[in-house]
């Protein structure tokens, strides 16, 4: 028997079917938590984000429709938005130095980690490593730290008007490398 797909599980979840919710939860718990941790660099905040994301899923507060793209991409966007909100609430993201994540991170050998995620992570990390340092930095400030345009300009000592172009260039470059390596599929 084939497993129900994400969209099917989502609609059953908003109809308050616990079993479907649990399947969806088990499928994405680790990815959501790990991504929230990547964004916040803080376990407590990552827990709060994960809890909020899944509770809103159950309550139907965050509404998904297929015109919003793949369910997993939408779920990760919701996770990112919540992480940014939490970071902003804490008012720490712009001022605290990066923690040594390796000291907090436990590399997992769990079979729960999907092969797809491992594969994509390898490809993306290899691609990021090929970027110039300033491109890596601008992607980090923009995407993972969620800085405003003016904050990025200030941080990178760039004119405000050139920030968007620099981010786009870095992301396009990254996408290009990922494409060449051919290991990432969105299907």
């Amino acid at each position: 028997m084939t497993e129900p797909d994400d969209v099917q599980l989502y609609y059953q979840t908003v109809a308050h079917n616990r079993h479907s919710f649990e399947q969806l939860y088990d499928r994405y718990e680790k990815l959501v938590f790990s991504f929230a941790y990547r964004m916040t660099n803080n376990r407590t905040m990552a827990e709060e984000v994960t809890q909020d994301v899944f509770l809103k899923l159950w309550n139907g507060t965050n509404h998904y429709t297929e015109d919003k793209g793949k369910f997993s991409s939408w779920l990760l966007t919701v996770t990112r938005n919540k992480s940014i909100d939490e970071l902003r609430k804490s008012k720490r993201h712009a001022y605290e130095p990066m923690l040594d994540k390796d000291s907090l991170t436990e590399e997992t050998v769990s079979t729960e980690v999907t092969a797809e995620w491992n594969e994509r992570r390898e490809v993306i990390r290899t691609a990021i490593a090929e970027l110039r340092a300033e491109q890596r930095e601008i992607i980090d400030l923009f995407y993972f730290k969620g800085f405003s345009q003016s904050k990025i300009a200030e941080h990178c000592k760039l004119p405000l008007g050139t920030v968007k172009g620099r981010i786009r260039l870095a992301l396009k470059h990254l996408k290009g490398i990922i494409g060449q390596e051919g290991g990432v599929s969105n299907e």
Partner: protein
Amino acid sequence: MNESCHMLIDYFNRTLTEDEMRQFENHLIECPSCQEELIEWEMLTEDLPYESEAIEVPTDLKARIFASLPDIPEQAKVVSMPTKEKSRRRMGPVTSLLAAGLFASLVANAFLFSETQKQPEIAQSEIQLIGQSILAPQEGTSASAVAMLIADGNQNILLLDATDLPTLSKDELYQVWVIEGDQPYPAGIVQPNETGTGTVSHPLTDLSGTWDTVAITVEKEPNLSAPEGQIILAGGI
């Protein structure tokens, strides 16, 4: 490009104030260039979450989350329907535009229809859009539908326009439902043409007005007290 276009990055990163957020969303509806650009930013960043290191989730997190779920009594439903939402669904800018166009067309059709059936005193200005939604197709179908709730004078009317409905066998029909709480009400039959397109206009006289979910199912009989067949499309409104 105008001044608002420059806010796209800060909109994407949620660094705008609530007022600025609203201002940009209003701009987004009217700016195809920002709509395209936003899709591009989403596409350019879609791989990045997967860069995250897999880390161990606290062992009790799942238990805590499940313990905090509101206790909802199991309903003996014939089929599982999406529950109502707390707030109206926010539509994407592109679908909003499509829906707005469709709304204008449906209102015009409804107006022309009533003009030819009787002598109405209804002015178009009395017709107001209360809610709208793109219904999501269920597994294995490419069907789509826009549902709109309009107030026509003192009466609420559900307008629904569906496309790409799969061909039915002779003894089947497409039943529209609105759901109030857990109670479904039949709200018209869609009779698709040969291309799978069909429209329904249904007055909602028996409902208290608190419903906010619309669905289409395949049934053997019209106007059953509860759906028995497969859900084809469903969504909050």
